Each structure stands twice: as C-alpha cells, then as structure tokens.
C-alpha cells in the first residue's frame, strides 16, 4: 500500500471514530519511506521459554494469537515449536522469542528485525525478554506480565510503533507499561486498525468461486470479502474460460451484488467472475477471480442422465429443466445415440417446452453401453437456443 493509501486509511479511521484530534497507529518505515512489513500472510516464531516463568510459552502463544484473531486482517502469527536457540538479533531467517539477561540498563524486552530496504520486506524478527527483571504470567503486581509485554512486542513484530499520546492509553501499542499491567493483552480498535492497514484482508471472491451451477437468466448473489479501505468494486464475468470478460457492474458498494445472470446460447461450462476493489480515490487495491470454473446452465437433461440400463421396447421418461433463454422456446428436439455420440438419431420434435417425453426405448441387436439422450431448444425461427445431453452413458440392452 502506498503512502496515499495509508493517508486515506488514517482519514478513514479518524472519521470512523468521529474524532478529529485522536492519534492513530504508526508504522515503521525504511529510509525510503516504505512501510516495513512481512510480505506473507503469516510469520512463524520459535520459542525458547527457558529463563521465563512457568507458563511463559502459553503466554507467548496467547500473545501471538491475539493478533492472529483479528478478523479484519489476513495476518497470522504461527508457533513453530520450541527451540534451544538463544540467538537474538541475528539475521538467520529464524524468528525467535527468547528469555535471557540483558543487563539492568532499563531494557525490559527487545525486538530486532531485519528487512530489505528496497521493498520493506521483513526477513527476520527476534524478541527477547530481559530476565534481569521479574516476570510473571498471572498479572502479579510485582512483576511484568509476559503476555502483556509479549502482545506489545508482537505489535512491533508487525511493525507497529509505540504511541505516547494520552489518548493512546488503552492501546496495546501505548509506549508506557507498568508492573502487574495486563490491559495490553486486549487490542484497542486502533491496534486492530493498525494490523488491518498493514495486512488487510484481500479482496476475496466467495461466490461463485468454482463448481457452482448457476441458472441462466436468474438473479445470483455474487459475494466477496474485502479490506476496509475498499470503497467500491467493479465486477466482470467470462463465459469462455477467461479469454474475454464482460462488464457486469461498476461502483458497487458493500460485499454482495445481485447479478442478472446472462442467457447464453448453450450451457457455458467455463465461466468465471472477476472482482476489482478500489479505494475512495478510485485507485485499484486488489482483485480476485473465481478459483475455478462454474457453469451457467440454460437447460439440463435430467433423465436418463447416465448409469441406467434400459431395455428395448420399454417406456422411459426423458425429462429436462430449462432456465432463462435468450428467446422464447418454440420447439424441443430430442435425440439419442448408441455409439458414444458418433451419430445421433431424432426421437421426436415437440411443440412448446413440455419438459418431459415418454420414450419407447429403441430396438438393439446387442448390448449398447455408449448411449446418451440429448435435448435441443429451438426458437420460433428454428435457431438453437439451448441444448444438453446425458452427463454419462447409459446402456440399452435387447429385450
């Protein structure tokens, strides 16, 4: 996110709260002004709790989980396991939380992190608790609470800075803490805005995300998740596997849209939706497509749909369902094949769209396993406006 985005996000946050003089979260930056942050959605820490009070590991895990649980951010701290390492501040690509003496010069806990200057990407982050000072995990009045300080330090790991204004008092990133204090284990809305700014939820399409069968001509609710700063969205769809995209809507607010599904000729089995999120200045933030193809279905032959064994001379209902069509259905043509689609024979032509027909199974001289039925919708001019066939083969055997 560039500085303009950050500025807009801060304005958004301030307006959201209805304050004009409230300070807001601050982020670490490189000398070039880039936000320093992880470029992945998670960071794994290994913990050496030796030297800390009993229960330190659990307290540190809880501190990490507090940030992970923010549901407006995509970021997660992961516990990688215990370690015997006492290395701190070494650029070894292994993120550690350790306990150890650091002297009595006033440093209670330290967080050192390495990053790439050109991108701001964090590449190593280590936290160390100074065991020259007393620690507890129960909020003891005479010691410093591991989870309380750990939550604050992991805020630094996200690259949130300390805050000092009196209005920041309740925040986890407030720069002053005291013995017995535990209030930092609960994030303030500003802390949540901080992590959400640095690690926003992506624009994420939920429906249709692949595998759905969407009736043509219907109203389908497209749904998505998006970061707070995404003010509007543009929607597109493709019926040709993403080769071409048709515009659906622009300036859409919220996280859903009632889509008037098109009425293509024939069922479309390689359909995708694309969504692009924009900030309040109209600058694109993020986009997402359906993870895999979905179907826009004009007509579905429902029986025989494959797997059946039919006997020559007996009766069998051919049934089908139709959705919205580009023009009214005037006639139905029904076909069948006994040679895996090499040739199709007309069963009958029907007026209108009765959606069912009683078929006399044709005579065969030997067992035929490559059989399918097909329905074709035609308009008043005899043009095809929809078709479907059995999904799988069925069998016709002699009487």
């Amino acid at each position, binding site marked *: 996110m560039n500085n303009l985005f950050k500025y807009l996000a801060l304005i958004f946050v301030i307006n959201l709260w209805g304050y004009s003089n409230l300070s807001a979260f601050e982020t*670490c930056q*490189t*000398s070039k002004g880039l936000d*320093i942050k992880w470029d992945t959605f998670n960071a794994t820490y290994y913990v050496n709790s030796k030297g800390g009070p009993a229960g330190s590991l659990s307290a540190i895990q809880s501190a990490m989980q507090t940030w992970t649980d923010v549901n407006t951010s995509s970021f997660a701290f992961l516990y990688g396991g215990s370690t015997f390492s006492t290395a701190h*501040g*070494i*650029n070894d690509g292994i993120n550690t939380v350790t306990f150890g003496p650091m002297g*009595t010069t*006033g*440093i*209670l*806990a*330290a*967080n*050192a*992190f*390495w*990053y*790439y*200057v*050109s991108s701001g990407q964090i590449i190593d982050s280590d936290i160390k608790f*100074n065991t020259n*000072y007393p620690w507890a995990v129960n909020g003891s*009045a*005479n010691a*410093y609470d591991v989870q309380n*300080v750990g939550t*604050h*330090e992991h805020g*630094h790991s996200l690259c949130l*800075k*300390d805050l*000092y204004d009196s209005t920041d008092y309740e925040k986890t990133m407030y*720069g*002053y*803490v*005291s*013995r017995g204090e535990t209030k930092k284990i609960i994030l303030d809305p500003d802390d949540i805005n901080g992590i959400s700014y640095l690690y926003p939820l992506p624009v994420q399409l939920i429906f249709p995300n692949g595998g759905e069968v969407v009736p043509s001509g219907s109203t389908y609710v497209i749904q998505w998740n998006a970061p707070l700063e995404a003010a509007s969205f543009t929607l597109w769809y493709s019926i040709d596997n993403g080769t071409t995209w048709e515009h659906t809507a622009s300036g859409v607010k919220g996280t859903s849209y009632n889509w008037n599904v098109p009425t293509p000729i024939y069922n479309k089995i390689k359909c995708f939706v694309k969504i692009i999120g924009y900030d309040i200045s109209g600058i694109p933030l993020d986009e997402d497509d359906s993870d895999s193809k979905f179907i826009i279905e004009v007509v579905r032959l429902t029986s025989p749909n494959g797997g059946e064994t039919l006997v020559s001379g007996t009766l069998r209902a051919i049934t089908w369902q139709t959705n919205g069509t580009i023009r009214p259905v005037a006639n139905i043509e029904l076909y069948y094949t006994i040679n895996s689609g090499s040739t199709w024979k007309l069963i009958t032509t029907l007026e209108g769209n009765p959606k069912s027909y009683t078929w006399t199974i044709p005579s065969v001289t030997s067992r035929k396993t490559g059989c399918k039925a097909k329905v074709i919708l035609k308009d008043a001019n005899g043009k095809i406006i929809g078709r479907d066939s059995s999904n799988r083969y069925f069998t016709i055997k002699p009487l």
Partner: protein
Amino acid sequence: MVYFLLSSRSLAVMIGLGTEELTRGSESVIIGEVEDTEAQWSKDGKTIFTKAFIVVNEIIRGRTLQKRITIEYEGGEIGDIGLKVSDVVPLEKGERVLLFLKSGKSRGDGFVYNVVGKAQGKYSIDNERIARKRGFSVMGGEDIIDNNIPLDELLKKIREVR
C-alpha cells in the same frame, strides 16, 4: 522494545530516566544538527550499527572535545539490508536534536558517543522549538517523562539539575 524506566512506584523508589536522571547520567547534553549518517557492519559481520556525525551548535551541560562529534547506535541500512532495534530511533540527516551523551567504545574502531537511554535520550526539535521524543516503551513513569515540551522549558530543567 519495551524500555524499562528504572522505577517501582509502588515501592516509592523512583530511579527513572526523566530529565533529571538523563542529565545526571550524561557526560554532556548538546543541541546539534545531524550532518550525515553512515551505517556499517560490525566487525563480526553479524549486526549493523550506524554512526551519525553531529555538528554541535550548543553545549547545554558538560563538554565535548570537538565541534563535530560522532554518535553510534544499533541498526541502520547497508545496501538492501536494514536492521531496526525497537528502542533505537535513527538520527536523520538535517535533523536538529538535543542529545544526552556518554562516551564509549565503538563497535567498529575508536571511541564514540552513545545516547543515554537510547531513544529516551534524543529529542527532535521542530521549528516551533518544541522538543519531542519517540521510539521507546517505558515501564511506568509517563508522568515524569518530559515529552512534547517547549525547548526553553526543557533546557531550564536540564540546567537546574545539580
């Protein structure tokens, strides 16, 4: 980094790094301008430290031997690699600062000055002569720390320290 103010107010023992303690812990207090900075690898190649070259404009207390002094602190950027340590605030080229200083051995060669209390011992001075400091976490004692304070008031406090 959570920076612990050496205090336990519940026991009425206050050994904090307020202005008085910062002053007493310093060999000198100066106002100067950051002329330039230069990050270097430590001798063992495991960490980065930065030297900041300060032109001394005014000596508030104590003395410095030279008009141009060198400050050293952890972290910095070399090429595409950067290191930040959470209680250290970088000195920025062109910045006007008030610093509480103590001499020490360099991580490289020779002797340098260190900022007492790390980020606590550095005030940035803006055009309205307001002194501000940031970049540290302190265990209690926010009421004894002078921040966002008029420079003249801060100087008066420093000079009053006996």
